[in-house]
């Protein structure tokens, strides 16, 4: 754990106009670590994730991923982004392509693989998420859970060093959540470093190394799952945990 962190974000501020959304967030993620982020709506969780791969431009601060300074203008951002997979709440699969097409697009266009090479890698990735037999299906022909697993395959096919999940199960019917969490658990067991924003407390309890509670643009408290869920030190954390456990 003492080795260089795979993600190191320091002092991240983000303003949207006059709206100060991130107010100096520090986040260091060790190799193989899973950090689980919780917090009320609007607290800046998505914005934080999106600053890590620069889908959102931080107003100030630094982000280093796998030794690459993400904010340095000399950094080849498109190359760097291949090391950071991202999974979205709304899947964002390309509806005009098959599952395999979704997974192989970046392999061909960015990683420069031939169609044959890309297809081979893509099929392996689909197999890892249990969808080898759905390679030729379009997103419209897949269930929500299957779509999200294809989205995960699309990200891991690029062999990222860290994966960001932004509420990956929030738009799924309850009976489909398990299949996606299963894939995430497998990924975690394979040693993938992950930052997960989610409300799946059960998953957090048995898969997270660390839980971070965000509120109003700051990480208010962090600790092991049992610390945060059973004995939060901060009043704000306590009331948030109390609220979500009622549901």
């Amino acid at each position, binding site marked *: 754990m003492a080795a260089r962190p795979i993600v190191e974000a320091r002092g991240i501020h983000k303003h949207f106009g006059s709206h100060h959304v991130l107010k100096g967030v520090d986040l260091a993620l060790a190799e193989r670590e899973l950090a689980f982020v919780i917090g009320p709506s609007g607290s800046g969780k998505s914005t934080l994730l999106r600053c890590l791969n620069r889908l959102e431009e931080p107003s100030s601060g630094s982000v280093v991923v796998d030794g690459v300074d993400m904010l340095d203008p000399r950094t080849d951002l498109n190359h760097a982004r291949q090391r950071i997979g991202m999974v*979205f709440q709304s899947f964002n699969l390309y509806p005009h392509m098959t599952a395999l097409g979704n997974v192989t697009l970046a392999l061909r266009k960015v990683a420069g693989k031939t169609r044959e090479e890309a297809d081979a890698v893509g099929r392996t990735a689909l197999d890892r998420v249990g969808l080898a037999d759905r390679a030729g299906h379009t997103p419209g022909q897949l269930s929500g859970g299957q779509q999200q697993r294809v989205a995960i395959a699309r*990200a891991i096919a690029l062999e990222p060093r860290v994966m960001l999940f932004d509420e990956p199960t929030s738009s799924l019917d309850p009976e489909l959540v398990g299949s996606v969490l299963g894939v995430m658990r497998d990924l975690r067991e394979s040693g993938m470093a992950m930052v997960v924003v989610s409300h799946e407390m059960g998953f957090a309890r048995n898969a997270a190394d660390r839980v971070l509670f965000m509120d109003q643009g700051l990480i208010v408290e962090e600790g092991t799952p049992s610390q945060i869920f059973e004995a939060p030190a901060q009043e704000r954390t306590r009331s948030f945990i109390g609220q979500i456990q009622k549901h």
Partner: protein
Amino acid sequence: MSAWDRFLEAFFNPVVMSRYLPDILKGTLLTIELAALIIVSGLALGLALALLRSFGFRPLNLLIIFVVDLFRALPPLVIIVFIYFGLPAVGLSPSGFVSTWLSLMFVLMAFSEEIYWAGITSIPKGQWEAARSTGLTYGHALMSVVLPQALRLTIPPLTNRTIAITKGTALASVVAVGEILGMASSAVSNSYNPSPLTMGAVAYLILFLPMVVFGRYLETRMAWKR
């Protein structure tokens, strides 16, 4: 002679019709040529403008919007007359054919740019984000992810707009182009009989009715399955 006979005599006169059929056919070929040039160049320029606009370079976008609005606001005939009768004043004398082609090309460019643009902006932001998050460049995301989806959405409105503008080739008769209407009108003045107009109308129907039906067909089946 009954009224019915007079009607047939005027609009379906077999002698006049067979005499001017070759002219009408020639006119039809010219209309097809003109329409094809307008469609190909107009749609290509419209797409090029929409792609340029997507880069979000403000001064350029304001210019594009200005040009597009200009050609959407002007009646096509005004543009044709302007080019045909106006440009000679600066030493250019485009033929009636070229004047009509350029005019309707600009009009189709303007309308299709707006349609392409609406298609591009209607693609959810998440598509861009997913593509960019995997390292795709802006250009790759646009060409491989956004544009294919946008184009599919634009096909029905684009088809309808293209038909509407291409029908404007009839305006070329004003600047002495021997397309369908031009041929038919001169046949009418030479024969003192309106039957060639009937043939002209039939020629337009043969050209455009299939396109209209095709447009309707596309419209009913454009829904995208997500």
